[in-house]
């Protein structure tokens, strides 16, 4: 739409108000926006409303205008043309921003939809994928392959870039004993994409004991045991205590039927604990001289007798009131049974440590003037020599004074001892030999007073056979000196064992709250040699199955170890594929 008209006025006002000479009907225009008037021979436009006008694109409050200039008032463009004759000015007014475009403008100014406001899903996905592959795949592979992982860390921080990257792949906590080399995966994972080989374990544990006697005939069980990999039982990254499997079924899977599958081993079937566990079988001494050991159930009737080669009675030592030699103090277990440093078991019983305090091997008698003469312990030939030496010395001194009566006759209290003086006379050698033999027979190797008080002899029925020992004269003890193998054995061998269950371990240090005699009925131990090892029911008073609610939870490995060092090494590193 286009129209033209002439205006005669001193000035021309533009605005949306109807009183203006040029009404501009648009809300975007001020009521009275601008005025055009002649000034000084030219024409000037002045913004009279609150908004400035734009003259040739420049915002202005007032400006001189000439033909060819363009003035913008709101959406209107006012162009000055060369005036026709008789006119001061000629204006062409055009609505350059019509309202009809408002929908388009609204549409173009609106941002509707997250795709126009948010960042691209694809870019985020790519960035995330690349980040994850770089950090969680590439970095650990590069670290492993570069060999940059330290063998183990000596001090310093655990949090270094290397350990942090190594930890990214860690599937679970390492066992406590292996954590010190946790910074180097290659310690166990020696090559990629292969399972951890036994050689990796044996690098440190080369002497780990075998489970079975290498000479035992196990048949298929042998293949099964030998075919096991270390990691079949010892899985790493299963928590700080996870490296040793404690579940009973690991053992029971085989031991449930071992009597049938490996009959030669003599191992009893076990199907659980306490139910399903056979009675304890103690390894006791059947014959100390053999030595011959015997494995016997502790509840066998008649009661099994341990024969360590010594006449020892616990009951005789644990008498009420005690003994004069101990100041009448009653004996207690700990008087003889001394804990090992770790407290698990007890130090071996020895004559010197446990017996000598009371059972001194005195050879003198109180009423003789040469006290403290003793015979040695554990040296049969030495005993004979000591006695011979004693009498030889006396012979040199001219004889001895002895009580006239026999030893078994008691003096009345207060009565003077009847002393008879005996001299070697003309044949000191024969005298010494006779005195030595008499002393050996009647005093030293006496069944009641001497060695026989505790020991058996090597003779028939445990008697003392002195025939060899007495050959030491007349040549004297020098005849056998320096030849221990030929030395006569008068005392039968003694075999005192500290453990009765070689295939199980019992930790006394963890049972200190229980009185010794609660388990070991030592006071009632009759006859001599009665086994004091308690039966299984003593244990089950407190110990239950591995899932027990009201008992101590006990698994196979609570008492039994898998690896037994006395069977030799479990695996020979040479025999393994490298």
């Amino acid at each position, binding site marked *: 739409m286009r129209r033209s008209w002439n205006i005669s006025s001193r000035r021309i006002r533009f605005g949306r108000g109807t009183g203006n000479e040029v009404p501009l009907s648009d*809300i975007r225009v001020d009521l009275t926006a601008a005025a055009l008037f002649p000034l000084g021979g030219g024409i000037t436009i002045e913004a009279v409303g609150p908004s400035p006008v734009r003259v040739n694109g420049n915002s202005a409050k007032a400006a001189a205008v000439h033909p060819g200039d363009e003035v913008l008032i709101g959406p209107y463009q006012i162009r000055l043309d060369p005036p026709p004759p008789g006119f001061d000015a000629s204006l062409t007014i055009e609505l350059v921003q019509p309202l009809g475009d408002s929908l388009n403008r609204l549409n173009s100014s609106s941002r509707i939809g*997250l795709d126009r406001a948010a960042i691209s899903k694809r870019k985020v*996905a790519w960035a995330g994928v690349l980040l994850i592959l770089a950090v969680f795949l590439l970095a650990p592979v590069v670290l492993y392959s570069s060999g940059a992982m330290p063998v183990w860390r000596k001090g310093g921080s655990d949090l270094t870039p290397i350990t942090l990257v190594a930890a990214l792949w860690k*599937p679970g906590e390492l066992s406590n004993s292996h954590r010190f080399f946790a910074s180097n995966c290659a310690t166990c994972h020696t090559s990629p994409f292969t399972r951890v080989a036994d050689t990796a374990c044996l690098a440190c544990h080369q002497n780990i004991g075998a489970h079975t006697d290498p000479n035992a005939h196990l048949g298929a069980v042998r293949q099964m045991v030998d075919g096991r990999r270390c990691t079949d039982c010892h899985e790493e990254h*299963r928590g700080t205590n996870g490296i040793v499997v404690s579940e009973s079924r690991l053992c029971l899977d085989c031991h449930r039927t071992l009597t049938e599958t490996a009959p030669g081993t003599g191992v009893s079937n076990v199907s659980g604990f306490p139910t399903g566990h056979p009675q304890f079988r103690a390894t006791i001494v059947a014959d100390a001289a053999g030595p011959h050991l015997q494995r016997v159930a502790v509840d066998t009737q008649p009661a099994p007798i341990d024969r360590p080669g010594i006449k020892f009675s616990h009951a005789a030592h644990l008498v009420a009131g005690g003994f004069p030699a101990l100041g009448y103090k009653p004996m207690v277990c700990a008087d003889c049974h001394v804990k090992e440093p770790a407290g698990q078991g007890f130090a071996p019983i020895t004559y010197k440590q446990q017996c000598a305090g009371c059972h001194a091997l005195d050879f003198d008698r109180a009423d003789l003037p040469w006290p403290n003469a003793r015979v040695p312990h554990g040296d049969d030939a030495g005993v004979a020599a000591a006695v011979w030496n004693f009498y030889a010395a006396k012979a040199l001194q001219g004889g001895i004074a002895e009580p006239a009566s026999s030893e078994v006759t008691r003096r009345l209290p207060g009565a003077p001892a009847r002393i008879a003086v005996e001299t070697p006379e003309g044949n000191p050698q024969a005298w010494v030999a006779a005195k030595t033999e008499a002393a050996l027979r009647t005093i030293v190797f006496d069944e009641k007073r001497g060695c026989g008080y505790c020991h058996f002899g090597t003779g028939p029925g445990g008697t003392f056979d002195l025939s060899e020992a007495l050959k030491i004269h007349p040549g004297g003890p020098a005849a056998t000196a320096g030849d221990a193998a030929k030395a006569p054995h008068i005392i039968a061998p003694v075999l005192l064992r500290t453990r009765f269950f070689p295939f199980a371990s019992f930790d006394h240090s963890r049972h200190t709250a229980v009185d010794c005699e609660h388990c070991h009925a030592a006071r009632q131990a009759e006859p001599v040699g009665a086994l004091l090892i308690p039966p299984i029911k003593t244990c089950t008073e407190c110990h239950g199955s591995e899932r027990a609610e009201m008992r101590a939870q006990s698994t196979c490995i609570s008492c039994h170890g898998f690896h037994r060092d006395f069977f030799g090494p479990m695996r020979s590193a040479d025999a393994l594929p490298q």
Partner: protein
Amino acid sequence: MRSADATEAPLPGHRHESFLIHSQFRYAKAAVLLVVAAIVVYLLDQPYGTGYGGSWAGYTLGTVGALLILWLTWFGYQKRNYATIRERLAALLSAHVYLGLALLVVATLHTGFHFGWNVHTLAYALMCIVIASGLFGVYAYARFPRLMTDNRAGMTMQQMLGRIASLGDELRLAALPLDEATAAVVERATATTVIGGSVRRQLSGRLAGCTTEAALAYLDRRDADKPPGSEEAWLRVRVLLDEKALLLARVRRDISFKAIMDVWLYLHVPLAFMLLAALFAHIISVFFLW
């Protein structure tokens, strides 16, 4: 009282069936079956120590879980070719949702409930976020389409925008007789009509400092001292502004609903791909250091 027949008889070919109940919960049942099987496998497995990903059940559940993740991600690819799967889309979506939920159980059992700061738990955590965002998507798709329909009152977005634009035109005309200050306020309300914008603005459905609301508030303030003689124009502007404000609120609410229906995908999709990367790294790491 209407008869039951009249209300319940479905219109043939027009019944809308939610993907949630597709084929009488066929895929829900399949997912339940999968979950039960996974639990049985987990319980049957008795590894030494506690359950973990490296036992036979662990490997089984892990394999099933990894295959599920691949299949679930493939759905996104299929969905792009809408034309070829139009018939099966509801079935695929139903399976996607229910098997995705089942995956949560399968993968959790695969972990044996062991977690740490490592690639393995990273993959699991990403999977959980993807599933959680997907669950939000299910919720959004179940809730917001109806709200959008109600809100639009039969109009399309373009219709509403056109009405707002023409209201602007009318406002400009109606405000011609008004005084400078009032006209400026009305013009600002017309010229600066902000629709949509940033993510937060789209999600909120509101606009702090809306010029239309400001103009209405201005008119309220000036109501007592409006210039004499302009009552008619004043009233007319007031009516137009009210209508525009109403429409703007609707448009913004509509944008908000749509934004909420879309926003979870900004987690779901990128994290799904990151999950694939983490899953790949997880599997490689397990066998690299076997």
